[in-house]
C-alpha cells in the first residue's frame, strides 16, 4: 500500500516535471496574451502613461458596439467569408482530386505534378503577392493582353468602315459609324461625341491612314482595365484565385500522404468487383480520409481568418479598403494613424469567435456525414 502511494507520488512528480515547463511556456506565450487581449477589448486602454492616455478602466462591450456599427467591419467579415469559402470548397476538393489522380496514377509524371502544384506553398507569400499585383495591375500582363485583343477587334471594325467609305472620306455618315462602333466609356470624355470626333477626324489627311487607325484605336477602343476589380465583392476575385493557387498544393500533399495509408488490396478488390474510379474515390478513399479532411478544413478556416500577408502584398486592403479583411482591419486600427488598441483587440477576439463557430460547424458536419477510417 505504502509502496503504491510512493509510486503514485513519484509518478505525479515525474508527470509535472515533464509537463510544467511546456505548461508555463504556454501560459505566458498563449494564455496570458489572450486574457490580456480580452481585458483590453473591454477597456479604454490606449497606451496608458506612455501615451499620456486617461486612466484606463473597464468599459464593457463598448468596443464591440462600435465594431458592429462600423460598415467596414461587415465588409471585412464578408471578404473573410469569401476567403474561407474558396479555401474550404476550393482548396480541399481540388487538393483531394489532384491527390487522387496522382495516387491512382491516372496522370503520368505524378512526382512532377506534385512538385509543380506544391511549389507556390513554399515561396514567400510577399513575393507571390507582389507578383500577382503586377499581373492584375491596370498596366499589368492581363490588361496588356486584353487591350491588344480589344484593339485588334476595334481595328477590324474600323477597317470595314474605311472599306465601305472607300478610304478616309470624312462625311457625317462616316463619323456616325465610327461613333457607333466606339466604346461608350471612351466617348464619355466628349460633351458632344459626334461633333468633337468630327473635328478630330477631319484633321487627318488621306495619306495618314495608318496614323488615323492607330490614333482611333487609342482613343475609342474598349480598354480592359480591371476597374471592376475595384468594386466591393468583385475585387476579392483575384485574391481568391491566388489563395486557391497558393495553398491547394499543401492539401494535395496532405491527402496524398494519407491516401498511401489505405490498404491497396481493398481498392484492388473493388476494381475486380467492377467498381469504377469514381466509385473507388467516393466509397473507399473519401470515407477513409474523412478525419483528415475535417482537420484540413479546420486548418483552412483558421488560416483563412488569419490571412494578412498575401492580401497586404497584393492590394494593401485597397483600393479604397474594398479588399480589407479582418486581420488588415485590425492592423489599420491598431497601428495606422491614430491607433485604437481596444478596438483592435475587439476585432482580434471577433476573429477567434468566428473561428470557433466555423470549426464547430465543421465538427457537426463530420459527426453527421463523416465516415470511419
Amino acid at each position, binding site marked *: 500500500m505504502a509502496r503504491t502511494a510512493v509510486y503514485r507520488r513519484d509518478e505525479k512528480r515525474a508527470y509535472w516535471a515533464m509537463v510544467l515547463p511546456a505548461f508555463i511556456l504556454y501560459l505566458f506565450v498563449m494564455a496570458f496574451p489572450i486574457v490580456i487581449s480580452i481585458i483590453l477589448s473591454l477597456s479604454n486602454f490606449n*497606451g496608458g502613461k506612455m*501615451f*499620456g492616455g486617461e486612466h484606463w478602466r473597464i468599459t464593457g462591450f463598448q468596443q464591440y458596439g462600435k465594431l458592429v456599427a462600423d460598415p467596414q467591419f461587415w465588409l471585412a467579415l464578408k471578404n473573410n467569408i469569401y476567403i474561407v469559402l474558396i479555401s474550404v470548397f476550393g482548396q480541399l476538393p481540388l487538393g483531394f482530386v489532384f491527390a487522387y489522380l496522382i495516387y491512382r496514377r491516372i496522370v503520368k509524371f505524378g512526382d512532377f505534378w506534385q512538385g509543380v502544384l506544391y511549389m507556390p506553398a513554399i515561396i514567400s507569400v510577399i513575393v507571390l503577392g507582389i507578383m500577382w499585383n503586377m499581373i492584375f495591375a491596370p*498596366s499589368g500582363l492581363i490588361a496588356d493582353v486584353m487591350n491588344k485583343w480589344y484593339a485588334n477587334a476595334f481595328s477590324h471594325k474600323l477597317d470595314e468602315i474605311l472599306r465601305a467609305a472607300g478610304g478616309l472620306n470624312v462625311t457625317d455618315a462616316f463619323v456616325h459609324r465610327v461613333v457607333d462602333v466606339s466604346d461608350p466609356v471612351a466617348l464619355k*470624355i466628349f460633351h458632344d461625341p459626334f461633333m468633337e470626333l468630327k473635328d478630330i477626324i477631319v484633321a487627318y489627311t488621306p495619306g495618314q491612314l495608318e496614323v488615323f487607325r492607330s490614333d482611333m484605336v487609342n482613343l475609342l477602343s474598349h480598354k480592359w482595365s480591371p476597374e471592376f476589380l475595384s468594386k466591393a465583392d468583385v475585387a476579392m476575385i483575384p485574391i481568391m484565385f491566388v489563395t486557391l493557387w497558393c495553398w491547394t498544393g499543401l492539401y494535395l500533399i496532405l491527402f496524398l500522404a494519407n491516401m498511401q495509408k489505405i490498404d491497396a488490396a481493398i481498392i484492388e478488390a473493388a476494381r475486380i468487383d467492377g467498381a469504377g474510379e469514381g466509385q473507388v474515390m467516393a466509397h473507399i478513399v473519401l470515407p477513409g480520409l474523412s478525419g483528415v479532411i475535417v482537420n484540413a478544413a479546420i486548418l483552412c478556416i483558421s488560416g483563412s481568418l488569419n490571412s494578412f500577408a498575401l492580401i497586404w502584398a497584393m492590394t494593401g486592403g*485597397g483600393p*479604397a479598403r474594398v479588399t480589407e479583411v479582418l486581420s488588415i482591419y485590425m492592423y489599420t486600427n491598431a*497601428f495606422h*494613424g491614430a491607433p485604437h488598441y481596444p478596438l483592435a483587440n475587439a476585432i482580434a477576439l471577433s476573429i477567434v469567435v468566428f473561428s470557433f463557430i466555423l470549426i464547430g460547424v465543421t465538427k457537426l458536419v463530420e459527426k453527421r456525414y463523416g465516415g470511419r477510417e
Partner: protein
Amino acid sequence: MKKFLFFALVLLIVPMSLIAQQTTLNFLYYIDATQAGYDEDQAYWQKFKDANPDIDLQMEILFSQAYHQKLSAYIAAGQLPDVMYMWPTTRDSSALLHSQKLVKDLAPLLGKDFLSNFVAPALNVNAQSSKMLAELPQSFTYTTVMYSNKKLLSDLGIPLPKTYAALKAMVPKLRVKNVQTILLPDGDQWPAQSCLFSTVVGRMLGDAWIDKVNTGKVKFTDPAFVAALKFVQTMFNDGVINWSNIQQPYGDGPGLFAAGKAAFIIDGDWRQGAYLTDKASGKALIEPAAQATDFAFLNFPAIPGQINPGVVSAIAGVGLGISSAIPAGSDKEKAAVRLLKWYYGPEFSQMKLETGAFIPTRKGVTSEKLEPFTTMMPQYYSSIAKTCYVLDGVLDPSVFNVLNAGLQSIGLGAKTPAQVAAEMQKAMDAWLKSKM
C-alpha cells in the same frame, strides 16, 4: 607560450574595450533605395561611422508606408528608435511622436549657434504640432508640383494649360497618342490628398475654413467642401486623371512619366530627385540636357470657382528627431546630437542638394554640380505667391485617413462627394468629442 597568450589577450581586450566604449544608436531612416542619390547617401553615412568610431550606428532603412507602419509598431511596443525621421505634423506615424511628446525639443540640444545657420521659418515652432522644435525641417516642401513634359505637348501642338478647361480640352488629343493627361499614382492612398486635394481646398476654401472645421464652426458637409470633392470627381469623369491611377503604386510614377506615358505628373517637390542621374550607374530617368529643354514645373491651372488663385499646398519639411526616452546628458544623447549635426551639416546638405533630394533650409548651401531640375525648383517656389495647408498636416489622422480612402472611392465611382464628406464629418465629430 606565455608571451603569445599575453599578446592574444591584449588583441582580444583592446577591440572589446573599444566596443564597450561604443554608444549604440538605433536610427530609423527614411529613403527610397531605388531612387538616384541612394548610394551617395549611404556613402556619407559610412563617412559618419568612420569619423565617429565610438558610435555604433544601427541603421534601419525603410520608405513610404512601410516606414510609417514600422515606426507605429515601434511606438506601440515602447521601443522607439533613438533617432528617427519624422514629419512636423500629425502625418501617419509622427502623430503620436508630437501628441505624446515622444521626442525631445531640439532647440536646447542643437544650440543657438548651430541653429543660426538655418533660415528663420525652419525654426518656427508653430509650424509643428507639438509647438516645439521636435524635428529641424530640412527643407520646405511644396506638395503640389505639376511636372510637365513640354516637348511631348509641343510635338502634339498642345500649349501649356493655364485653366482647367484647357487641361480638359487636351484629353482627347493626348489619348489618341495613348498618353495620359495627368498621372497621380494613388495606390498608397495619401498622394491624391497631399499632392492635389490640399491645393484644391486651398484654392476653393482657404486655410481659414480648415481652421474653422477643426473647431467645429463649419462642417465638411457644407456645400463649399463638397464642391471641392466634386471638382476631383470631375477630373476623373473628364478623363483628366485616369481611374487606373488609384491602383498605381506611388513608386511607379517617375518611371511612367519619364517614359512619356503622361503629359503631366502631379507630385511633391521631393520627387524631382527621382529623375536625376544616379552616380553609381550614371543613368538618369530624364537626362540633364532634356531636363532643361523638354520639361517644366507648372503651377496647377486655375480651378473653376476658386477664391485663392495660384495658392499651392506647402509645409515645413521633414527632419530627424531624438527619442525623449534617452536620458538627458547621457552619452547616447550626445551621440544623437552629433548625428543630427552631421545630418544638418554643410557637407550632407550639399550632397542632398546635388542629388535633388531637397533644397536645404541650411543657409549658404550651393553647388556647381546641380542638374537642371534642381535649379528649376527654386524658380518654381518663387513663382508661388502664397501657400496653403497640406491637409494631413492640419487634420487629425482619424479624419484625413477617411479623406484618403474617400478620394479613392470617388475616383472609382464607388462613393459620391457628399457621402465622403459625411464620413469625414462623422470622423471629425468623434475627434472633437474626444477632445472635450
